[in-house]
């Protein structure tokens, strides 16, 4: 057990942050029910098979800088087209000191389809070894998540606590993550750009 008060406070706060994150979906559902919005949240969806350059529009630089190892990072905000409008996306690119691309990651959050009420986030990272890491969080009422278009398609089970985090490494672009609600409705899907 630590004797460092700043660390002790950190431990308490992070434990609270975990509890807070676990209860957030229920709060979100209540909030949305109050507003009586018709269709709700689904998955961040970048149009299937669309290349990244075409999928992400209205981009603008958000932040940039240099890390301690001399790499540079650029964070760009962008909008991705979805079946129900648009998704807010954040793209982060890191370049090595010699200018070569070290990694690229995109994360999105978007409006989805009724009748489900599940905010879903998904992201993908082009890792240093050129493999692609797909990760994300499917929140609330998600019955299952599938990842297809990869070497070994996977299906993740129900999100019993209202959240289902997933992370899977795929070897090539083209993977599609699809989230379903209890009734089998597609909450949304995200396809990796080629």
């Amino acid at each position, binding site marked *: 057990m630590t*004797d*460092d*008060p*700043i660390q*002790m*406070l*950190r431990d*308490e*706060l*992070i*434990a*609270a*942050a*975990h*509890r*807070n*994150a676990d209860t*957030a979906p229920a709060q979100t559902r209540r909030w949305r029910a109050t507003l009586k919005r018709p269709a709700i949240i689904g998955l961040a969806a970048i149009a299937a098979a669309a290349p990244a350059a075409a999928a992400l529009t209205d981009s603008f630089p*958000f*932040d940039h*800088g240099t*890390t*301690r190892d001399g790499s540079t*990072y650029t*964070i760009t905000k962008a909008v991705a087209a979805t079946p129900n409008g648009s998704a807010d996306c*954040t793209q*982060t690119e*890191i370049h090595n000191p010699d200018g070569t691309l070290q*990694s690229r*990651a995109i*994360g999105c959050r978007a409006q989805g389809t009724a009748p489900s009420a599940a905010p879903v*986030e998904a*992201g*993908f*990272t082009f*890792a*240093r070894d050129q493999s692609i*890491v797909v*990760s994300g*969080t499917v*929140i609330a009422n998600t019955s299952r998540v599938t990842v297809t278009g990869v070497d070994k398609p996977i299906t993740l089970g129900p999100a019993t606590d209202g959240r289902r985090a997933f*992370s899977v*490494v795929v070897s090539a672009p083209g993977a599609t993550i699809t989230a379903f609600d209890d009734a089998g409705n597609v909450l949304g899907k995200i396809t990796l750009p080629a």
Partner: protein
Amino acid sequence: MCTMMFLVDRLSDNELLERAPRDPEAFAVFYDRHAGTLIGLLRYRTGSTELALDLAGEVFAIALERAESFRAIHEDSARAWLYGIARNKLADLYRTGKAEDRARRRLGMQPIVLTDKALDALEQRLEAEQSGVLAALELLPAHERQALSARVLDEEPYEQIAARFEVSESVIRQRVSRGLRRLRTLIKETP
């Protein structure tokens, strides 16, 4: 496994705070970036390390609770937002004579019990950090140092600082932001 999480510590403060309601790791990085400085500042304002830690706990708890409503307006929004909460809590302290703990109780946080040894260690650390910060501050370009001192230490409004230096408010925001970034780098480089 390498996931998007490895990028979290490279995100801006605004990004971290926006992610915080769903991503405890993002909030942890945000805390790590600001806890030392904030506690140091609160200690400077209250003259008590114990009270400073108490207040900082409440400030971060409120930040966590309200992160969902945070909206970045400019590059320095997250830091300004956090210090805005701190200023309010300090005002409450001056008015009521005690540090609130309502947010911490709502979040189910346990009180931090400080032993004499832990308190001594924290005081020494804060004093060392404070002298390190002051030394690093001297290494900044004059215009950044002046803007940073006016904004962070003296809590002057941006508008007032801008008028004094006869530049626009956005220029002052940039100087404060760049100064903080440079200061952070300098402090990290200090052995």
